[in-house]
């Protein structure tokens, strides 16, 4: 068949209505401070693991809300639970507990 150079792109929009919000809701119920995040990135700036991996608490906080749980699951494996992010957070997010609850939520929903 003649190739006219056309390609088909997959839809890359976040289909918000179709996202899986269970994990975020689970974490929010047990650690409501997750929703204090203003995405300033101070956590990610201080994160030692983030220098060498794609770990960013700020990003995890956002991806959770968008139901991108597969990425969250992969990302948190890089966290060493050192707690520096919690020290610098201007909003008082309990970052370590958020990570711990994500782990529990992933187990619960078998994500």
């Amino acid at each position, binding site marked *: 068949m003649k190739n006219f150079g056309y390609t088909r792109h997959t839809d890359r929009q976040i289909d918000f209505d179709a996202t899986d919000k269970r994990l975020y809701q689970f974490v929010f119920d047990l650690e409501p401070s997750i929703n204090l995040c*203003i*995405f*300033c*990135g*101070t*956590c*990610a*700036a*201080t*994160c030692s693991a*983030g*220098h060498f991996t794609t770990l*960013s608490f*700020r*990003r995890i906080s956002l991806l959770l809300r968008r139901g991108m749980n597969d990425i969250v699951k992969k990302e948190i494996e890089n966290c060493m639970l050192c707690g520096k992010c919690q*020290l*610098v*957070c*201007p*909003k*008082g997010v309990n970052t370590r507990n958020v990570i711990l609850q994500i782990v529990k939520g992933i187990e619960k929903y078998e994500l």
Partner: protein
Amino acid sequence: MKNIVVIGGGIAGMEASAFLAAKGYSVDLIEKNDTLGGRLANWDRLFPTMRRGSEVTEFLAEGVMQEAVKVHLSADIVRVERHHDTFLLVTTQGNELHCDAILLATGYDLFDARRKEEYGYGIYDNVITSADLEQIFSSGRDILTQKGKKPSRVGFVHCVGSRDEKAGHTYCSKVCCVTGVKQAIEVKQQIPDAEIFNFYMDLRMYGMHFEALYKKAQEDFNVQFVRGRLSEAAENLDGSLALKVEDTLAGRPMKINVDLLVLLVGCTPSEGTRKMASLLGLKLGFNGFFKTTDQHTMTNYSDIPGVFFAGTCIGPNTITNAITDARAAATAIDIYLSGNQLANRKMKPHEEFWLYPSH
């Protein structure tokens, strides 16, 4: 003739004094420093127009002079007595001032940047505050590093001591965002070769013309705005500073060196506010500024009849709004002293601080 004592000779105290005196009251203005003008005296040029701060001070002083306000400099209040609807105030000089109303215009203090230790103010040579930078502007000195080098890269950190649970100041200081934009332009004007970076969480350009100033900084002065809040600054061997920040929009942590770092410090409740609150038995709000009778309609009123507020003693504010507020306070006092029924209006009580946890 009825007497009014105004405490604090900054912007609000000066303008309210002039307006009250113009209304025919006898006004004593108490200022703890040896000059009037308050913190405005330390500011060189003003956002958004770049007008000299001194021109505003001169304008306010003209009002104080013209209306024969009795100014007490280097004076403080040591004692307050309340007798029915009058007050007796005793100053450090031993003056006894009898008055029918008190206007508190005790202003704000600057956040002590040393408390954000991770930014190194008072530790590293080339970390200064926005107030320090204003002093350099006012003095006409060149902007130089500690070693006398012209900085080729300058960083501004927004929200230092503001919107920060860890610093104990959860509110927005309102004026630092636009100050950061103004100062970035001024540094660029003085050192056109310098690269300027403003590190921010949000840029709150809420006032008229603030957005225009921001646009000017971007378009005419090529100021770079990086959306990320610094986690720390560390000093390099040559005295420059290594900053750690997440470039949140790129989604990656970023390291960047600057020759000079300017911390945009916020406003905190003043020592004078705490002192007068204790002398008068007035409540402070959750954030430590004076607690007004109502957040919407009674911001000039305290819980004590005859005691009023003006300016930044109730919260961070711009010069424009402090002047407007001073004139409003003068009117409120005039209405109160003339026995007008308007002064007796009350708002239904409501729980003001449901906003804050466990208060």
